[in-house]
């Protein structure tokens, strides 16, 4: 699994809202902190294991199964593509 953002989607920090947003043509999705930190690592180069180990440098108790589940959920909402 090498997740990447959908074509033409980008992550942006919105200072006025204090929120991470996923910007897509004609659509904005407000992300929670967990989803934002995972999506920020979905660059189409890192695999699942690499994403998990990145997350471990910042958060405690990261579990690969949970990250995978989150990614599958986000993919179901078409906010990330898994390949």
């Amino acid at each position: 699994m090498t997740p990447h953002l959908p074509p033409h989607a980008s992550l942006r920090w919105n200072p006025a809202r204090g929120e991470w947003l996923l910007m897509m043509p004609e659509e904005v999705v407000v992300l929670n902190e967990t989803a934002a930190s995972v999506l920020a690592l979905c660059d189409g180069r890192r695999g699942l294991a690499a994403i998990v180990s990145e997350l471990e440098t910042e958060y405690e108790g990261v579990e690969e199964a949970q990250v995978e589940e989150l990614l599958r959920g986000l993919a179901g909402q078409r906010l990330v593509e898994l390949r």
Partner: protein
Amino acid sequence: MTIPAPLGMLAELTHSCPLHCAYCSNPVELVAGTDELSTAGWVSVFAAAAALGVAQVHLSGGEPLRRRDLPELSAACRERGLYTNLITSGVGLTGERLAALAVDHVQLSVQDADPEGAARISATRTWRQKLAAARVVKERGLPLTVNVVLHRHNVDHVESLVALAERMGADRLELAHTQYYGWALRNRDWLLATAAQVRAADAVVRAAAARLAGRIELAYVSPDLHTGWPKPCMDGWGRRQLTVTPSGNVLPCPVADLLPDLTVENVRYRPLRAIWYESESFNRFRGTDWMREPCRSCPRRDVDLGGCRCQAYQFTGDAAVTDPACRYSPHRPLVEAVLGAAERSVGGPPGHRRR
């Protein structure tokens, strides 16, 4: 109720447009060029919007390219971190013009699958300019949405419209049945598709969506009058979006100024933040407390949000009733009568044409 900050703003920079589409939803009373906000006026609107939490600005009209200051206006959006979506007819969108604009995405309107049909609905010949516009958008590597408003005279061409969008290199294709406001309401009998046309289009869209999956995203807006399921007004009145008209009026939806008793606020006289949070107009239909039956006790009330307030007003004279498009509305017979009239064919040219 906590009032959320807006995410998107539709900036109608001008009502001036080279096309004269019979389905235009601009108001019948168009704003004159002399009443338009100045460059500085729009720049301060964008600054206020960004400070309010707006993330995405749709630069629209009329035809936004008719504003000579569009490069400055789009740059002002980008400086404030706003994602900009240019909504255009494509007329005048040359490579040179596009290179001067700070836009993140372009939505290009297409009127029909062939030059003759497009000329009939828009009363202009812009076919080649649209093909050229699509080309320059893709040459710059920008995402392209092709938008088609569907009605009686082009709804049978969905298959060819999809093929055209593919040829144009579209990343997204929006096929949206006409919504009846402004000029479109005046031409409703001429525009309304028959039930059989809608059924056929639905099937073609389903097949196309399956075929295009993973390549082109297909967004389909069903005709609420035909389906009996109302559209959730703006995803909630005063919840996600606001519209600023060419003269600086601030509206909860692009057509809300058709409600005669709505006190319309203007950015020249009141800050955008105060209008969003405090104005009577933005609070009128916020949340669900305003709802009456059958909406109030309906399990779909948080899905449909009562439907469209403006359509409720247009059909019944009361903006606070259930949208008559809804199959559960006691006013549904008014919609059935309109649909019945559409089954009897209307030929000739449209009765009304915007300037």
